[in-house]
């Protein structure tokens, strides 16, 4: 299963992620 997020944000929005990274629910993924 997969969860896809699509959202509008200011153009200077940055993901704090790396491809292939494991994440936990509630972990920050962007600023």
């Amino acid at each position: 299963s997969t969860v896809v997020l699509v959202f509008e944000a200011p153009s200077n929005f940055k993901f704090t992620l790396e491809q292939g990274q494991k994440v936990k629910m509630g972990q920050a993924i962007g600023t």
Partner: protein
Amino acid sequence: LFSAWKDTKVKWTPIPVGLGIGFLCFLQYRRVVKRERERLDGDEVVRRKYVASGPWQVHVAAALPLRSMSRLWGAFNSINIPEFLRPAGFKLYSWIFGCNLDEMKVKDLKAYPNLSAFFYRELEEGARPVADAPLVSPSDGKVLHFGVVEERNIEQIKGVTYSLDALLGMDNNSTRAIENVRFDPNTAAVEEEEFANVNGINYSLDDMLGSSDNAVKTVSSVGPDGLAREAKDERSNMESEELVRLADIEPSGDLSHRTKPGNSLFFAVIYLAPGDYHRFHSPADWVVQMRRHFAGELFSVSPYFVKLLENLFVLNERVVLMGKWRHGFFSMIPVGATNVGSIKINFDEALRTNRKEDLATGTYTEVSYKSASKRLGGKPVCRGEEVGGFYLG
């Protein structure tokens, strides 16, 4: 022949009633068969627009009755396991798929009657602290891809994209056979002027929207320890500000996600492995205005298949939740897979996924959540609040 024709006496007799009824039934049967054939032919036309393409592995998978297999898998895993076998069986599953049994809410493995119940297990309180950030991960999992949506296309893997409009149901192909279902307010978790937050504490929406000086006064129940109460009170103040902001944001019309000046559209794809916690939570404070349920195929969504199968996320069954957050358009899309075909949304009891009668044609049914809160224009969900989950089969 001549004499027979000439001399045979014509004898009129009434037709038996049963024969007449049988004849009418036969006519009706032919009419129904013809109508169903025409309907299936029409669905086939739509289906051809969503054809799986890729190497031979994709064609092998496409030839399999994945939806039937998924339902069979779900039914099999719903069979209760003898109590004495449960600990060993679930430990074996956990060892194979890397489940962390220490963070389960109910640690007694005998309490889970079958694998489906174990798969949909809850986590203990505090196992997943919600970060103080505007956007958090909705689930446990592996980040498959993320980035900016360019020219209304989302990158599936490097160099291969799928259409954002097809994913959300904005294109002409997927608008066929839309069935607009009126959202039943009785099934919503939210009353018009009041909602319960994830901790089970009720607040008046008027207070949350700032009509009252102190929203915390409306807390009807608090946790037993002072620290927990203090933390909840701080969060309620934050939610109050956020709800004021969300109430002020105008619904984005047809949700065609035209971004405001200075904004862009972003996407992130998180893959849940079989051993992961399979409930998903709200990644932000936002208002869900509608959902679209696409009855689709149930291909595997493992990283291996993501690389093989083009348009995978557009082909598969999915539930598109759309609404608004502080920056504008927001959407969360749980996508099903062969082993987890059933998607549950906690505040939408009418939703039924992976049903035999729904053909995998790429069409969708749409439900509006506006009746959940007239002021907010939808169902408000807080960051970290459980929204739903994936069931086996």
